[in-house]
């Protein structure tokens, strides 16, 4: 048991990487979601079709497959491109980047659905008022539509982020030394699998509970004067 306590700094380092991974992927999720939601509202039918394919693809494919695909497939693709241009030493994709990219692409699909729902919830009167004031399309979007979209989409996006936070554990399969991976290493050193995984579970539980409480606080602030 004494040995177990020696590994605490090791586990804390993993926890820190998990937090960074979740924050980076959360930002990526918003970016991809906003992009898809904007593209999905375009007039072009082909673009709309693309967004609908994209979202149904990522809704059905396991996140694990996407992570493995981007890491192993992506490395190979980049190597081929480099070799094609005559470079002898192609770079390796870092598991952190591959993990952020995979989680952003997967959760961006869900985020775009949430944002689309929020877009539908904005009253036409508000948009007409902007038009009547002579605001341009992009100004209306920036000043009238998006600020309200955020408020409406906040609960949905918050839930998505909580699910994403738990899915960061999957990035351990491409040996990123986040919380899960560090725990696996401590297991192999201490031979105390149950104790170690239980500690990891407790840390994840603390992360999700704290994040959940934080999100509720933000929601209350965003909804003041409305609900």
């Amino acid at each position, binding site marked *: 048991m004494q040995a177990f306590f020696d590994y605490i700094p090791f586990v804390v380092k993993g926890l820190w990487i998990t937090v960074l991974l979740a924050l980076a992927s959360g930002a990526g999720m918003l970016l991809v979601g906003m992009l898809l939601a904007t593209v999905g509202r375009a007039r072009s039918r082909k673009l709309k079709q693309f967004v609908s394919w994209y979202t*149904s*693809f990522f*809704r*059905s*494919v*396991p*996140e*694990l*497959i*996407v992570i*493995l*695909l981007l890491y*192993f*497939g992506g490395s*190979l*693709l980049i190597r081929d491109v480099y070799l094609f241009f005559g470079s002898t030493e192609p770079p390796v994709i870092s598991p952190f980047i591959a993990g952020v990219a995979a989680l952003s692409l997967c959760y961006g699909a869900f985020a775009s659905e949430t944002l689309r729902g929020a877009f539908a919830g904005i009253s036409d009167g508000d948009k007409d008022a902007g038009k009547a004031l002579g605001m341009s399309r992009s100004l209306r979007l920036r000043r009238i539509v998006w600020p309200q979209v955020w408020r409406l989409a906040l609960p949905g996006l918050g839930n998505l982020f909580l699910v994403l936070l*738990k*899915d*960061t*554990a*999957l990035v*351990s*399969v491409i040996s990123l030394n986040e919380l*899960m991976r560090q725990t*696996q290493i401590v*297991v192999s050193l201490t*031979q*105390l*699998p*149950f*104790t170690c*995984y*239980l500690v*990891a*579970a407790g840390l*994840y*539980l603390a992360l*999700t*509970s704290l994040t959940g409480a934080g999100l509720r606080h933000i929601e209350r602030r965003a909804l003041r004067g409305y609900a």
Partner: protein
Amino acid sequence: MLETLIKYAPLLLQGVLLTLELVAASAIGGFILGVLLALAFYSPRWGVRRFVEMYVWFFRGTPLLVQLFLIYYGLAQFDWLKQSFLWRGFLDNPYWCAILALSLNTAAYVAEILRGAIRTVPAGEIDAGKSLGMSRHLRMRRIILPTALRLSVPGLSNEAIILVKASALASTVTLMELTGVIKTLIARTYQPLEYYFLAAFLYVVINSLIVRGFKLIERRWPHRYA
């Protein structure tokens, strides 16, 4: 690629079948346990309600991967468990461990969906049952649960898709389901891009069939509060 694909087709089929088996077993296990948990949440006993809350909190707040490893790798820490009848063929078997972890996990989500649905059953219906002199249990069985189950079909459909995706984690405890088979094929052919896309495609096919199945249920089982 086509030649190797034909060569490995039987292996792939076995993988798909094992994925379907894991999903079916965990869906049944998770559903039964989820209904029990949802009912227990409305128990008059404080301790029972508290237990359900803690259960749902734990299983929704931690990654499935951690839960799976706790069961498959973690339980081996206890010698008394290894001596018990539960060990041989059950807890030392990745197949049953995966089904156990997926079922326990799904049950927490099913319980949440049902709990939400039970809350939306119209109060008038429950009052009607009361005025007919129905007991608490009879009301639950005849009025609340049937309505709540129908109301939760769309939520359960989503949960089924999540379960299919979650079953890919079984490959981390050495099971040769779809993802496990794909990893083996990549180790043999070294064509990760092609084979991971093949896996993605097969998961899309499985999930679209499941969605279609649930749509059928929704159409065949009309409900009054749409």
